C-alpha cells in the first residue's frame, strides 16, 4: 500500500498538486496555515506539521522567502527516510542559495529534489496534458514524484542537475516578468524573442557560476518553462510585468498580479551576484533598475538595445 503524499502549503500550486495526487489514487495530507479547504477525494487538510510526516514524499509549495522557516518547522517531524521536493521559483540570499540546499541544511532530509518546468497550478488542478522536470540526484525521488502525480496526462522527466533546474526555474520567473513588462510597453514579438533568448543565456551564466550544467537551460526547466510563460496568459510574473510596463507602481502592480512574485526580488540579487563573480546579466540589471525607480522602462530598454553586440 502506498503511503500518503504530503504537501506543505495550500496555495494554488499546493492545491493543484493535491488534486493531481488524488486523481492518481493517492491519499493526500496537505498542511494549510490559513485552514483552506481542498475539495477533492482522499485529501485531508491539517494545521499540524506532524500529520504531514506520515507521508514518505513531502512537497514544499511555499514561497522561497518562507522556505527556511517552514522547512525548520516541518523538519522537526521528518527523518532520513523522507523525500522532499519543492516547487518554488526562488534562490535566497546574496549567494543565491538554492532551496534544496535550504531544505538539506535545515531538516534531516537528504533525498531532495526540485520540480519545475512548464507545468502550472492550473494544469495540475484541471488535469490538462502537461509535463515537468524533477531535478534530483536520487532516482527514488524522481520515482516518487511520478508515482504521486504522474499519469497519462502528466509527463515527469528527471535530471541529476538539481542546481540547473532550480536556477533555470527562478530565472525564468524573472524573464517572464521582463517579458510581461515588454508587453506592457507594447513591444512586438521579435523584441520579446530577443529578450527571452538572451535572457536564457544570462540565466545559464548564473547557473554555470553555481556549478549547474548549461544544457539544463535548453530543456524543460529553461526553454520549456519560458515558452509556456510567453505563450500563455496566466503567469503572475507576466501580469506583474505588464502592470509595471503600463506605468503602475510596484505596489499596485503586485496587487493586480495577486501572487507572491519572486522574480522582482531576484533581479537585484542576481545582478549583485553576477557583479561579484565578474560576469554580466543586463536584463536582470534592467529589471532591477526599473523596479527600484532608478530609470524608466523606456530608458532601460534603450540601454539594453544600445549595448555592444557580440558573438552569440
Amino acid at each position: 500500500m502506498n503511503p500518503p503524499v504530503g504537501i506543505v502549503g495550500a496555495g494554488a500550486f499546493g492545491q493543484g498538486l493535491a488534486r493531481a495526487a488524488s486523481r492518481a489514487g493517492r491519499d493526500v495530507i496537505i498542511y494549510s496555515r490559513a485552514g483552506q479547504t481542498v475539495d477533492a477525494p482522499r485529501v485531508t487538510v491539517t494545521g499540524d506539521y506532524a500529520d504531514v510526516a506520515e507521508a514518505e514524499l513531502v512537497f514544499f509549495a511555499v514561497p522561497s522567502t518562507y522556505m527556511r522557516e517552514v522547512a525548520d518547522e516541518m523538519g522537526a517531524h521528518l527523518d532520513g527516510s523522507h523525500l522532499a521536493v519543492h516547487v518554488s521559483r526562488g534562490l535566497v540570499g546574496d549567494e543565491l542559495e538554492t532551496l534544496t540546499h535550504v531544505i538539506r541544511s535545515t531538516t534531516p532530509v537528504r533525498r531532495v529534489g526540485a520540480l519545475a518546468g512548464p507545468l502550472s497550478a492550473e494544469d495540475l488542478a484541471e488535469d490538462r496534458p502537461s509535463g515537468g522536470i524533477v531535478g534530483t540526484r536520487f532516482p527514488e525521488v524522481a520515482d516518487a514524484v511520478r508515482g504521486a502525480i504522474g499519469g497519462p496526462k502528466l509527463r515527469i522527466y528527471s535530471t541529476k542537475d538539481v542546481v540547473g533546474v532550480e536556477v533555470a526555474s527562478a530565472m525564468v520567473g524573472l524573464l517572464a516578468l521582463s517579458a510581461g513588462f515588454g508587453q506592457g510597453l507594447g513591444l512586438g514579438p521579435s523584441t520579446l524573442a530577443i529578450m527571452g533568448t538572451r535572457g536564457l543565456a544570462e540565466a545559464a551564466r548564473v547557473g554555470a557560476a553555481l556549478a549547474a550544467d548549461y544544457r539544463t537551460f535548453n530543456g524543460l526547466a529553461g526553454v520549456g518553462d519560458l515558452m509556456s510563460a510567453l505563450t500563455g496568459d496566466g503567469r503572475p510574473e507576466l501580469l506583474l510585468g505588464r502592470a509595471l510596463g503600463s506605468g503602475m507602481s510596484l505596489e499596485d502592480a503586485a496587487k493586480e498580479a495577486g501572487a507572491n512574485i519572486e522574480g522582482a526580488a531576484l533581479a537585484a540579487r542576481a545582478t549583485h551576484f553576477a557583479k561579484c563573480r565578474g560576469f554580466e546579466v543586463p536584463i536582470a540589471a534592467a529589471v532591477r533598475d526599473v523596479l527600484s525607480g532608478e530609470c524608466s522602462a523606456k530608458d532601460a530598454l534603450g540601454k539594453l538595445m544600445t549595448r555592444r553586440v557580440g558573438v552569440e
Partner: protein
Amino acid sequence: MKLFSGKPLRLPRLRPYVPKKDDPAIFWFNQDRDDVVREVAKRVAEAHTSDRHRMELALNEVAFNESERLSKQRDDEAKESLGYWRGILRRVGRMTDADKRRTIENICTRMAGDVAGNFDPRVYAMAENLVPRLITAAMSPAQLPQEIMTPHTALKGLLSIEGPLDKLRHLSRKGALVFVPTHSSNLDSVVLGYALQRAKLPPVVYGAGKNLFTNPIISFFMHNLGAYRVDRRVKSVLYKQILKTYSTVMIERGYHSLFFPGGTRSRSNLVETKIKLGLAGTGVEAFSRNQANGTPRPVFFIPTTINYALCLEAETLIEDHLKEQGKARYIIDDDEFSRVDKWVAFFRKLTALESASIIRFGEPIDPFGNDVDDDGRSLTPRGDVVDPGTYVTRRGEASVDTVRDQAYTRGLGEVLVERFHAETVIMSTQLVAHILFRRLVRATPGADLFVRVRHRGDVSMPRDELVREVSDARDALLKLQEEGRVRVSPVLLTEPAEHIVERALAAFKGYHDRIAALDVGAEITAEDPTLLLYYQNRLVHYAEAIADEPNREAAQEIARMGRDR
C-alpha cells in the same frame, strides 16, 4: 603469476603480541587479514562473473592494460608477469566459462593479497618511540639526547593539535572513524600519524603509493602499520575496484581509516573544494552494507585540516599549479622525499617558529553530513536525535543502492568542503602574504594571473600600511572565527600586528630558494608573487569578508581566482 615484486619484511613470529581488550580493532588485523582478502576478492569477482560478456570484458580489459603497462616498464616485474597477461589475451576467446570465472577469481585474489596491509603491534610500539626521535634528529640533532630521555618534548612546540579529542577517543570505541584531511605536503601522513598517536587516537588504515614500499625501511614501517599498497600505474577496472572494496570492507569491519579526499596534494594551496568521491563513497557504502546486513555500526567522518606556516614543497607545488601540470595523483607520493637538504632547512625553520603546524580535527559527522553528539548519535540541524539508518531505508527496508549512495557521497563532499573552510587555521605567513598579494592585485586591476606573477619586486607597501591592513584583516578574521567560519592561529590571536608581520617576514627568509617578501626598511616588497600567491591562497575563501572598502575590488578578483581554478 606474480603481480608485484618485492616481499614485505616482517618481524619473526617468536613472541606474538596478544591484543588486550581495549586495543583498537587494528591490533587484531593479522588474524582477520586472510578473511578480508577473501571477502574483497569474492565481492569484486562476483561483480564481474555474472555473465559471459562481463567476464570477457573484464579479462580483456585487465590483460590488455597490464600487458601495455609491463611492456613499457621492462623491469623484473615485466619479466615475471608479462607472459601471463599476454597468455590471457591469446586464450580468452577459447576459454570455457568455468575457466574465465576461475581466472578472474585468481586475479582478484592475487590483487587483493597484494593490496592488503599488515599490522604488527610490536612495530607500532617501536614507531611510537622512534618517529619523534627521527624527526627530532633531522631537525635539531642537539636536542636528540633530551629526546631520547623524554620523547616528544621537542616536537610538542612544533605541532599543536586542536579539536574535540575526548569525543573522538570516545567515538573510536563506538564505530569506525574516517579521517579526511586537507592535503598540502608529503609530510602530511607522517605528521598526522604522529598527531593521532600523541592525541591517543587509534592508528588508522590508509592507502600509500607503492613507490613508498620500495625503500626497505619505509616499507617495513608502512607494511607493518596497516598501510595498504596502491600501485598508481595499474589502470585496470578490476584493480581499482579491489582498492575501493578493500577500503569498504575495512570500514565495515570497524577499522579506522584515513584518506585524503582531495586525492593529491593541493598544488595551489587552495583548500580543497573538489572532493574525490570514490574513497569517501566507501565509507557510505560500508555504512549501508552493515545496516542492510542487520549489523549496524556507525561511521564517523572527521574533517581535518593540516595547517603549515611554511610548506616544504611550496615552490614545486605552485609552479606545478601554474603550469597546470597538477595531474591527479593517487594519495601519497614520495617524489620529494629525497631532498634531505630541504627537510633539514624546513625543520630548522620550524623550530624557530612556535606552533609552526596545527592539526585541527573538526567535529565528526555521520555519512549523511549530520553532526553527531558526544555518544555518536546523529543530530538534525535542530539538535534532535535522528537514526542514520533511516537514510538507507525505504518503506521499512534497509538496502545497499549504488546510485543512492553516490548521491549521498556527493552531499557529504559538499558538507566536507564547508567544514574544511570552517576548520582551516589561518597562519601569520598566510595572512601577511595575502595582504601583500592583495596590494599587487590592486596595483594591476583586471590583469591575468600569469601577468601578475611576472611582477617580481614591482609592488611595495609601506611597512606601517602593511601593519595596519594586517591588523584590520586579523580583526575581521577574529569576527569570522566567532561566527564559526574560520580559525586563526594562536599567533594571530594574541600577537600585535607588528609582530605578526615581523614573524612572517622572518619565516619567509632563508627557507625557500626564492624569498617571498623583502623587508627593505620602511617598505616591504612583494618579491616573489608566485610564493605569495601560494601562501595567500589559503585565504581566498575569506578574501571578500575581510577586505575593507579600498580593497573590495581586489578582494573580489582574488575570490574569483579561487572559483575559476
